[in-house]
């Protein structure tokens, strides 16, 4: 995520307290801008999915904006991030241009994974997003291995690995936390606890519903934080990241709400009307805007400007994605192996891509 605007020469002549509060103000405004960017991005992704621009599955970060912004604020740009399939906002907050994230959703060549990863499998070595993962828990051992590599290489970077609450039930969770604690790896595991697996709530899925407490089994420090509050999330995340940088892995549970269905196609019928009403009051973007107004950080006019600017940006993002070319089907085989492999079975009867070979030894 871009750093908040630096103080200018003019502000440096101010008294120290107001200078701090100006930096603070800029930081909070930047949080809000990032949160709104993710919000509008996801709303646009939802629309594009329903209009069939986007194929596959599409899991949105609606309700997770504050958590994303807070978590990523605690990471340095050179730190590594692993996420699951609900990753669009994380990719943006890690510094990847929203244009490339949207193009990936559209399956286009300018996408983060050149259109071959889709919504669930973005990967960007340069921005150190080492994958969204569609298999629940798939990212955990891999993130752990990357942390092990950093330790071997005596590096200062850390790994952050996010997952959902439901993911803590899968074996890979326990294997990974045990390994990380045993080997003192520089990794922060983050549970985004939105209360639901797909349709199954935490109480029905976890014998210890206070998920951060699971870390006790590995003597790993852990904490729980309100994920609707970007400042609280950022400071909890910073503590976790500092621990990890010092060789103490950490488990952070971030409490969020999933404002819509599990994915765009899920009508979430398992939710009661009470629940749906409650969610209306739990929207982190709305809550944070109200807080900024109340604290006098931003006034309504400023919020409106941000809104307009964000809407314009998202329009441009969608246009970029739409204009980007689709990958050519002839590239289907290009990356199955790292280099051209002798005897790779590309040429098959019935294959539309290559002219079939004649039957061998056919009598003249």
């Amino acid at each position, binding site marked *: 995520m871009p750093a908040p605007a630096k103080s200018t020469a003019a502000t440096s002549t101010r008294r120290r307290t107001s200078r701090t509060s100006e930096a603070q103000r800029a930081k909070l405004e930047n949080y809000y801008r990032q949160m709104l960017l993710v919000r509008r991005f996801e709303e646009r992704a939802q629309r594009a999915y329903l209009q069939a621009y986007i194929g596959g599955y599409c899991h949105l970060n609606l309700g997770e904006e504050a958590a994303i912004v807070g978590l990523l604020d605690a990471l340095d740009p050179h730190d590594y991030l692993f996420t699951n399939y609900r990753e669009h906002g994380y990719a943006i907050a890690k510094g990847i241009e929203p244009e490339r994230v949207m193009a990936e959703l559209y399956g286009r060549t300018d996408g983060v994974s050149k259109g071959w990863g889709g919504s669930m499998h973005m990967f960007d070595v340069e921005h150190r997003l080492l994958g969204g993962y569609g298999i629940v828990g798939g990212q955990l051992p891999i993130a752990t291995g990357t942390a092990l590599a950093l330790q071997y290489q005596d590096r200062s970077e850390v790994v952050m690995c996010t997952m959902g609450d439901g993911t803590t039930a899968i*074996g890979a969770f326990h294997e990974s936390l045990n390994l990380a604690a045993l080997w003192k790896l520089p990794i922060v595991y983050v549970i985004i606890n939105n209360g639901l697996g797909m349709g199954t709530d935490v109480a029905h899925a976890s014998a210890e519903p206070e998920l951060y407490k699971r870390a006790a089994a590995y003597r790993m420090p852990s904490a729980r934080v309100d994920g609707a509050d970007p400042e609280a999330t950022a400071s909890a995340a910073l503590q976790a990241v500092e621990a990890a940088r010092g060789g103490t892995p950490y488990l952070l549970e971030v409490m969020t709400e999933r404002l819509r269905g599990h994915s765009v196609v899920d009508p979430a019928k398992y939710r009661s009307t009470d629940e749906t009403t409650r969610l209306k009051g739990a929207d982190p973007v709305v809550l944070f805007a109200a807080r900024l107004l109340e604290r006098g950080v931003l006034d309504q006019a400023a919020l409106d400007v941000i809104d307009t600017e964000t809407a314009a940006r998202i329009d441009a993002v969608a246009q970029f994605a739409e204009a980007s070319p689709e990958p050519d089907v002839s590239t289907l085989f290009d990356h199955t192996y790292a280099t051209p492999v002798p005897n790779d079975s590309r040429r098959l009867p019935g294959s539309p891509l290559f002219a079939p070979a004649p039957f061998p030894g056919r009598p003249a």
Partner: protein
Amino acid sequence: MTTMAERTHTTSGAPEPASGTRTLSFSKAINEGLRAAMRHDDKVMLMGEDIGPLGGVFRVTDGLQAEFGEQRVVDTPLAESGIVGTAIGLAMRGYRPVCEIQFDGFVFPAFNQITTQLSKIHNRTRGAVQMPVVIRIPYGGGIGGVEHHGESPEALFAHTAGLRVVSPSTPQEAYTMIQEAIASPDPVLFFEPKSRYWGKGAVDLEAPVGTDTLNTAHVVRQGTDVTLVAYGPSVATAIKTADALAEEGRSAEVLDLRAISPIDTAAVVASVRKTGRCVVIHEAPVFFGAGAEIAARVTEECFYALEAPVLRVGGFHTPYPVAKHEHEYLPSVDRVLDAVDRAFAH
């Protein structure tokens, strides 16, 4: 062999079953098959992620928890290895668990339990312990799913002795086969073609439940010039191809395998001896796929009857592609027609 009508008398106090012939979607047919099996035998229980109030991702278990309760329709945590492993333990104590895996790609956390335990326990105990566990897996592409959501991993299981690997192609088959799978004393990997879930067909709810569908292939259409061997989602493709061939004056026989392992070789051989040509169709990659085994068996047993080599049409040896290129990867009618042309050109 019992019929559904006879079965209802075995469970007292159960509500009247749906009876007669009805038009059902594929997913509803499995739902009715599960319901019938659960009414018939109270040791039958369902386990899986979000299968209770949600009714599963594809709503196959819709309404079953309401009817049979939370103990017989168990919403499990997100833990496939745990689901299949506990099912094995339940089976050791006489239960008949039916596990739902949400999508093809999510069976792999359970692969260990399936291949190292489930498939081997009967043999390991020299017959003392049976493993009547069914693992239902929605599989195949065609719905714009992607990696993990469009794959066809059946050959990986067919390669493991001790497992039965089956796949229905119509609502009627789905209804009967799920009951026969549950009644089987051996573990059954039950592959449900997800692209067919919404397709409708007539289902005779009183059709006999025996062992036929797990043991025998079914001739869907008689023909004389070429045998199209298919199962699951590819049967519909084979039928459409046969229609197109009929317009050209060629007569294709369509064979629905139903069981991929053990496979009804005799049915394939009988058909190919008659037609002299064989094209195998499946969505799974052709490389080391079921078609390879079929081609080998046909070559062994029909060598002198063959007019052309056995051909295969299926997925490529690449990871499952993105939604936009799915149709290039999946065996289409055109690709099957090309293969048939080649067989005739020989």
